[in-house]
């Protein structure tokens, strides 16, 4: 039961433009969301998070938007840089056990 879904396996953008990565969830009990970034041959690293009491959280070039009514969140990267090329996972913790549910990931390629 994949409660967190990333329906776009890949995304390619030009350097300097905006990258928008999308994530949908089905579990209305989720109230905290995280984005992780993963380079090849490395473990995922935490990027940014958002609580359900907010609809936006910004950290430098990275902004996450949350639309609770649509059960949708998105990660915006502006401006995109070649070093942002990686796989991005959205995730949400389950509160009834010590688990974090991850989406399948979106591979972002930023072209110089």
């Amino acid at each position, binding site marked *: 039961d*994949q409660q967190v879904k990333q329906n776009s396996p890949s995304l390619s953008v030009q350097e300097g433009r905006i990258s928008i990565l999308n994530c949908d969830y089905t579990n209305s009990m989720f109230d905290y969301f995280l984005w992780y970034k993963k380079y090849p041959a490395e473990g*995922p*690293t*935490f990027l940014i*998070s958002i609580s359900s009491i907010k609809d936006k959280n910004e950290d430098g070039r990275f902004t996450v938007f949350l639309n609770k009514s649509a059960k949708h969140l998105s990660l915006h990267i502006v401006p995109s840089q070649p070093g942002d090329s990686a796989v991005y996972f959205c*995730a949400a913790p389950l509160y009834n*056990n010590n*688990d*974090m549910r991850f989406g399948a990931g979106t591979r972002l390629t930023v072209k110089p």
Partner: protein
Amino acid sequence: DAGITQSPRHKVTETGTPVTLRCHQTENHRYMYWYRQDPGHGLRLIHYSYGVKDTDKGEVSDGYSVSRSKTEDFLLTLESATSSQTSVYFCAISIGLAANTGELFFGEGSRLTVL
């Protein structure tokens, strides 16, 4: 750097053989996790530990066992490896009280191929 070391980083084995992956942390965090990453599935929790000798199952625990005899080490064992267990395995720790109170910190991964 959360001080997580996984070993081995790469392993090729044959179906039916036992395999043990080791996760070592240097900062005495209580919560440790084993995830597997597969294309189309993201990361899925196999087992986790909330203290020495305290472990519990995750979403995809069948075919796996774990042990934690010391705070710093969390072992994942495949008693009899199958080709479906070919994957990249990640160990993670939680700095907070549990996975649901903060972000996870991951090791670099162990790539296992079962022939």
